[in-house]
C-alpha cells in the first residue's frame, strides 16, 4: 500500500527525494545517507556518503546512468560492524543484489535502511557522457528524462534496462514511487518493519487509488517481456571476442569470492603443463579458459543474478553479457521458482532441499513398474 | 478341467486388451478376497469376483466369458474402493463386457423387454442396462 508523506512538498520528484533525505539526517533518524550525487563539474554522478544534511544538495539518484552497482559499495560499507545507521538510496537492481548479498553474509543490513525507487532505466555510461556533454542544464536533464519516460517517448536506454522486469523496488525497506502517479509529492511504500520505524511518527496519507500505477506498470512489463530473449544459439560465437580482462567479474555485485577459483595459479598450471598439453593435443588455445570462465561464472552466480547489466557495460569488447546472463539465469531461477532479491526470507536454492525435490530423486531411484 | 499353463498361454492378447481397456494392474492382486466379501451380488455369480482376476492371471479369458459373473456385476464399485492393492475390479468387469459385446453381440435384447415393463421402469434403469449389456 502506498502512502503520501504529507510534510514534504516539492516542485518535482528529485526535489522531494532530496527533501526526504535531508529530513532523515536533520531528524537524526540516520547518521549518514549513501546516494548518487552529481560531480562538481556536473558531468557524471557517483555515490557519496553524506552526514551533513546540507550536503544532500546535488543528490541525483534518478540520473539515467549507473557507474557501479551500489550493492558493491555496501559490501565495503558493512565489512566491519559499526553502530552508525545508514540510509542507502538504491536502484531496484541494487536492492535485489544487496538482498542476495545479505543472504550470503557479504553485506550486513543490521544498520542499513534500504530506500529504493522506481527506476526509469539508464543509458550506457559512455553514451550518457556524450549526451550530457551537450546539455546546458545538466540538473534538469534528469527531470527531462523522467518526463520523457512518463510520456512513453522511446529513449535509447541500455539494452539490459530495456527488458528489466523489476523496475520498482518492492523489496526495499522503503520504496519511493512515481510511475503512474500524478503528484510530485513524495509517495512511498513501506515494505518492512524497519521501513516503518524509519518514518514512524511522520504524517502520511494513504493513496487509495493506485489503479493507474498498476496499469502503467503492467503496460511497461508486457512491453518488456516481449523484448526478452528466450534462448541463445550462438554462445561460443558471442564470447569469442573475450580478452579475459575479467572486468565483468570485477564489477559484478554478486561475485564475492576473495580470490577467483579461475585464477590460473589455482588451476595448478605450470609452464611445463601448458607445454605438455600442447604437445599431446597438437595445439591449445591461449588464453585457454574463456569458455570455462564464462560457464563457471554463470554456474556460480546464475541463481542470484539480478540482471543489472553492469557487466555488459564494463565489457571492452561489447560482448552482450547482460543478455547472456539474463537468459541463462532466468532459466536457472525458474527451475527453483526463485527470484533473487524478491524476499529476504527466501533461501538460496542451492542451500536448501525441498521435500518435493526429494521425491523427484526417489522417483528416479525407484521406477514404478508393473 | 485342468488348466494347462505355459508362457504362451499367459502372454495373451486378450489379457493385454483387458489391461488396456481397464487400466487396471491385474498382477497386483494377491487374492485376499475382499472384493468377493464385499460384493453385493456375488451370491448370484457363477464364479466369485476374485476368481475372475485369478483366471485372468492365468490367461483364461474364455473361461470367464462363459460365466455369468460379468453380467451380474452392478458396477457399484464397492470392490474398487476397498481393494488393498488398488486393483479396480469394476473396470476389469467393464472391460470383460466390452470384449464380449464388441464382437457385435448383445447380452440383453431391448426388443425383448416386455412392454408393460418399459412403461414402468425408469429411463435410467433402461439406458444403463442397455449401455452395459448391448453393443
Amino acid at each position, binding site marked *: 500500500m502506498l502512502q503520501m508523506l504529507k510534510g514534504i512538498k516539492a516542485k518535482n520528484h528529485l526535489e522531494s527525494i532530496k527533501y526526504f533525505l535531508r529530513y532523515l539526517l536533520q531528524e537524526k533518524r540516520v547518521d549518514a545517507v549513501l546516494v548518487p550525487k552529481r560531480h562538481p563539474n556536473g558531468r557524471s554522478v557517483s555515490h557519496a556518503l553524506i552526514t551533513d544534511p546540507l550536503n544532500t544538495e546535488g543528490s541525483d539518484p534518478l540520473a539515467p546512468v549507473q557507474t557501479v552497482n551500489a550493492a558493491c559499495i555496501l559490501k565495503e560499507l558493512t565489512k566491519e560492524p559499526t553502530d552508525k545507521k545508514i540510509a542507502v538510496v538504491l536502484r531496484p537492481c541494487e536492492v535485489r543484489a544487496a538482498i542476495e548479498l545479505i543472504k550470503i553474509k557479504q553485506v550486513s543490513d543490521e544498520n542499513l535502511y534500504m530506500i529504493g525507487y522506481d527506476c526509469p532505466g539508464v543509458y550506457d555510461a559512455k553514451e550518457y557522457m556524450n549526451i550530457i556533454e551537450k546539455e546546458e542544464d545538466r540538473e534538469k536533464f534528469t527531470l527531462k528524462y523522467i518526463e520523457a519516460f512518463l510520456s512513453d517517448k522511446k529513449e535509447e536506454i541500455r539494452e539490459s534496462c530495456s527488458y528489466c522486469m523489476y523496475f520498482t523496488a518492492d523489496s526495499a525497506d522503503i520504496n519511493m514511487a512515481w510511475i503512474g502517479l500524478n503528484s510530485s509529492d513524495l509517495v512511498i511504500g513501506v515494505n518492512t518493519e524497519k521501513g516503518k520505524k524509519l518514518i514512524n511518527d511522520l504524517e502520511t496519507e494513504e493513496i487509495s487509488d493506485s489503479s493507474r500505477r498498476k496499469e502503467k506498470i503492467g503496460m511497461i512489463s508486457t512491453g518488456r517481456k516481449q523484448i526478452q530473449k528466450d534462448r541463445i544459439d550462438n554462445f561460443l560465437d558471442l564470447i569469442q571476442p573475450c580478452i579475459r580482462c575479467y572486468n565483468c567479474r570485477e564489477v559484478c555485485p554478486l561475485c564475492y569470492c576473495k580470490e577467483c577459483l579461475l585464477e590460473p595459479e589455482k588451476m595448478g598450471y605450470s609452464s611445463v603443463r601448458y607445454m605438455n598439453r600442447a604437445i599431446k593435443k597438437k595445439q591449445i588455445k591461449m588464453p585457454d579458459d574463456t569458455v570455462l570462465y564464462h560457464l563457471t561464472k554463470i554456474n556460480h552466480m546464475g541463481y542470484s543474478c539480478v540482471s543489472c547489466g553492469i557487466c555488459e557495460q564494463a565489457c571492452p569488447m561489447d560482448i552482450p553479457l547482460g543478455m547472456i546472463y539474463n537468459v541463462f539465469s532466468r532459466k536457472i531461477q525458474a527451475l527453483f521458482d526463485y527470484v533473487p532479491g524478491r524476499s529476504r526470507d527466501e533461501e538460496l536454492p542451492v542451500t536448501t532441499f525441498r521435500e518435493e525435490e526429494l521425491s523427484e530423486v526417489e522417483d528416479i531411484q525407484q521406477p514404478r513398474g508393473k | 478341467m485342468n488348466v494347462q499353463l505355459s508362457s504362451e498361454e499367459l502372454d495373451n492378447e486378450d489379457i493385454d486388451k483387458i489391461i*488396456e*481397456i*481397464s*487400466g487396471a494392474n491385474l498382477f497386483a492382486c494377491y487374492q485376499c478376497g475382499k472384493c468377493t466379501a464385499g460384493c*453385493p*451380488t456375488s*451370491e*448370484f455369480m457363477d464364479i466369485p469376483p476374485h476368481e475372475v482376476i485369478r483366471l485372468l492371471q492365468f490367461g483364461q479369458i474364455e473361461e470367464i466369458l462363459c460365466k455369468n459373473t460379468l*453380467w*451380474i456385476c*452392478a*458396477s*457399484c*464399485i*464397492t470392490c*474398487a*474402493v476397498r481393494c488393498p492393492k488398488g486393483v*479396480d475390479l*469394476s*473396470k476389469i468387469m*467393464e*472391460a470383460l463386457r*466390452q470384449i464380449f459385446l464388441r464382437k457385435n453381440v448383445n447380452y*440383453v435384447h431391448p426388443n425383448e*423387454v416386455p412392454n408393460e*415393463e418399459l412403461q*414402468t*421402469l*425408469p*429411463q*435410467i*434403469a*433402461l*439406458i*444403463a*442396462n442397455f*449401455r*452395459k*449389456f448391448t453393443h
Partner: protein
Amino acid sequence: MLTVSYMPGCTLKTTGRNYEDSMLKLLYKLNVKVEELKNWFCCGTTYSMASDNLMNQLAPIRTLLRAKQTGRRELLVLCSMCYNTLRRAQDLVLHDEEKRNKINEFMYLEETNFNGDEVRVIHLLNYLKEFIGFETLADGIIKKTSDLKVAPYYGCMLLRPEEISIDESSENPGIMEELFQACGIDNVYFPFKTECCGSYQTVNKKDIVISRTSKIINSAVNNKADMITTSCPLCYFNLDSSQGTLVDNVPGFKTIPVMYVSQILALFVGIEDATDYSMHSIDPRPVLKEKGLLG
C-alpha cells in the same frame, strides 16, 4: 437471492417427478432460483469405464459445456446417476490431458473447450449444506414435534469411487444424518445405507434386485425406521417397487415407505402439495399422518 444452474436428467421428468417437484418447491421457499439448463443432454446414466472409448464421455462433457456457458460456477444435480457420470467425466478430463485434448478436438463445433475445472457439479445435499446451510434450513422447519424416524439411504453413485464422493468417506457418509439432525428429524442406525440396491439389473434380473432390496429394507425396519429416504431415482424405484413382490413372496415381510430427501424436507417446512402420492407403490400417507406430517 441465489441462482443456480440445474441439470435434471431424464428420469426426474417421469418416474422421478416427485423428486424434482419437491426440490423445486423447497428451493423456491428457500429463496433459490433454479435455472434449468436450456440444452442438456442425457448423461448416459452410467459412467463408461472403458478407457479406450471416449464416445460415451461426449454427452456429459457437452452438458458441462452448456453449464460453463451460463457463466455460473455450480451445476446442481439431483439424480445420483447424473452426479456420478458428470463428476467422473469431469474428473477424467481434468486429470488426463491427452483425453481432454482428444475430446475437445472432436467437439470442434463447440464454441469453447472444457478443461474440467470451470464448473462444479454439485449434488443437492452438498448444495443445501454449503449454499443454504443446515441451520437456515432448520430455521424453516415448522413440524417440530414429529417423531418420524428415517433411515437415510445413500446407495452407490454418490459415494464411489472415493475421489468423486459427495462426502469425505465412501464407507461412512454422514451428510444426510447431519442434515436430519440439524432439522430435528430422527435417523436410525442403518448399516445398509451404502449397500447397492441392484441398480440397472432391475430390467432383466429382478431376482438380484429383490434380494438386495429385501436386505436393505429389513435392516431399516429392524432398526425401527418409519421411512427410507434416498436421493436417487433408481434406488427409489428399486426399493419402492420391489416391496410388492416381497409382500407376496416373503411371509411376515414388513413394508416401509420410501421417499426422496426433498419430499420429506418439503413436508417439514410446511409444503404439503409437493408430492403426487399416487406414484408411490408403498403409500407413505398413513405413516405421515401418524407422525403428524400430513393433515
